[in-house]
């Protein structure tokens, strides 16, 4: 049987049995593969790193959308940077109150490929009339964008590779300029136990631009090594400490079905393990 070995770390890693390869492509310094695994369904990997799997993607996508959307409470306009697989779009589209979603993807082929080989991720969301797909570099888009958004979600790859510009101070500053007053920026920020630097570096870069900067987390099985952190940045300090009942009310009113997210998880996800708190404190 063929296997796929992740090469994210030298001394630790995960391996998948490959039942069938659906797609493999090496484009312009990128190696992309989509294959079938008995436990995780379709698995997509880029440059030796697992990007998403059908079985556990819901945790990641629900947490990067519903947490900021319900915390804000009145989101009309959403910007998604990256997220070519369409999972983020699918979750955002569940909110009937959202009027407009712009998704900026650097490579239109990624969108087409994911529609074809990972159809459950977008589940038809690309056909939603509220969605506007822009093919552009995310960093470039926020640099020249004059529109304002209530929530910006950065669904990037790892900092090594094409996604590196989405971890820079410039990018964060430009995102702030694209946020409406009291808007929220959330970003994928890696698995803290394995790469604690990503947390401290991101915190350092975001803090100058926002009154409230922190992280929340969730464990995603194929992002191995413990909880994944999401960076949370906004000027409205009350969002993180909303009364449980407020979130419950909003969640019930939205009438959304989730598999990971619920109001209790929402509140709990802002509780950080002590090793992350220590790292943030010792670095600031």
């Amino acid at each position, binding site marked *: 049987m*063929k296997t796929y*070995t992740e*090469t*994210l*770390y*030298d*001394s630790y890693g995960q391996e998948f049995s490959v039942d*069938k*390869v*659906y*797609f*493999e*492509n*090496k484009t312009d*310094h*990128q*190696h992309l593969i989509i294959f079938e695994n008995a436990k995780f369904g379709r698995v997509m990997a880029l*440059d*030796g790193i697992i990007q998403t799997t059908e079985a556990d993607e819901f945790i990641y996508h629900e947490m990067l959308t519903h947490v900021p959307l319900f915390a804000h409470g009145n989101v009309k306009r959403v910007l998604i940077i990256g997220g070519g697989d369409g999972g983020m779009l699918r979750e955002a589209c569940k909110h009937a109150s959202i009027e407009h979603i712009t998704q900026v993807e650097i490579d239109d082929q990624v969108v087409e490929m994911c529609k074809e080989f990972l159809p459950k991720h977008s589940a038809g969301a690309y056909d939603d009339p509220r969605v506007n797909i822009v093919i552009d570099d995310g960093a470039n888009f926020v640099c020249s964008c004059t529109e304002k958004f209530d929530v910006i979600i950065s669904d990037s790859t790892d900092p*090594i*590779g094409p996604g590196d510009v989405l971890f820079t101070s410039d990018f964060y500053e430009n995102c702030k300029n694209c946020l409406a007053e009291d808007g929220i920026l959330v970003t994928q920020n890696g698995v803290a136990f*394995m*790469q*604690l*630097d990503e947390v401290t570096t991101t915190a350092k870069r975001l803090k100058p631009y926002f009154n409230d900067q922190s992280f929340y987390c969730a464990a995603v099985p194929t992002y191995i090594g413990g909880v994944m952190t999401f960076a949370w940045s906004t000027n409205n300090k009350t969002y993180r400490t909303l009364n449980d009942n407020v979130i419950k009310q909003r969640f019930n009113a939205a009438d959304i079905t989730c598999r990971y997210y619920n109001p209790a998880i929402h509140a709990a996800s802002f509780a950080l393990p002590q090793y992350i708190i220590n790292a943030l404190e010792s670095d600031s």
Partner: protein
Amino acid sequence: MIRIEPTSQASQYQQLAKQHGTPMLLLDCDVLTQQFNSLSEALPGAELFYAIKALPHPAAIQTLDELGANFDIATSGEIELLCAQKARPRKTIHTHPIKRDKDIRDALRFGCTTFVVDNIYEIEKFVDYRHRVGLLIRVSFPNPNTPIDLSRKFGCREDEVCLLINKAQSMGIHVKGLSFHAGSQCPDSHNHVHAIRQCKHLIEEVQQQTGKLLSILDIGGGFPVQYDKPVMDIESFCAPIRAELYKLPEHIQVYAEPGRYLSAPAMTSISSVMGKAKRGDTTWYYLDDGVYGSYSGQLFDHAIYPLTLFSDITQTECAVLAGPTCDSIDVIAENIEIPPLNIGDILIGHQMGAYTSATSTEFNLFDKARIVAINVIEKTVSKIVPLNKNDQLL
């Protein structure tokens, strides 16, 4: 060393020359396979990393990959070659002691996480990637008695090893072993044995002084092949190495980086006489390949390749075999006694797989010799049924 054979022996080469044109290089992957198997048997337990710089050719990569070889890479260009051949990235080490940030990132993106360093400035380059990588420290030992000394340009002193490992540890960077190069085309394995012995002490010293457990020893290359002079067979060459490796702690995994040993015997050059001139008592023959081409190893690699000519004439005369370029340095052999040759006759160069086409140039805009590969081990094709015509499959 020039062998003269009867013209009846030339037919297979003439056929190849006719079919592919000259200058050409015939890459026989069966020989690669034999060499790989011989070295594997001579160094049981060692993981072999083919130093692809010696002959960076897709057929060689493919064959060795199928045999289960690993790869020693030094540049992003070499990574691209491996990528194109779909070699498994977990089985690569990046051995260039000096790297740009982009080189590190390219290697990580390919999936290579083992890197060789030999100084503090280089270790510092890994701070940002410290959670992803494992480093080998290259140590320099003297390379006496080798035609190619690899101890001067790279490698730290033995007494720097603990210091470097301490510094790496203080930066959170994982050092997992040591590496050395005993020279290239070594006449015997004294250098290897000495270096392994010293590395054993170093591994013990590192554990005592820093508490760091090293688990890899990379003994580099240096395994010889026969050019103009006889060399030790690989079994005799490796016997003392094996004996010394046996003394290492049991947990140490041994790596080796053969380049020349695997590739040199696998390639044969075929060139032809494109002109001749009588100059004094000497006949000059101008071949369509020379030291700016496949014979570049005679300049860069200190190699003198065994040659074969075909003639049924027994009388000989003084001759020069020259390359095609306008430069007077472009001479393959001079002051030789050979039978008279005709324009169109062919010259065979043996043991021409390592550092030949790899270092050849296109000076005068002469094309490089074409490499024709035979007996390539086919990629084990996975039995995957395409979903539709647009699928790109393994």
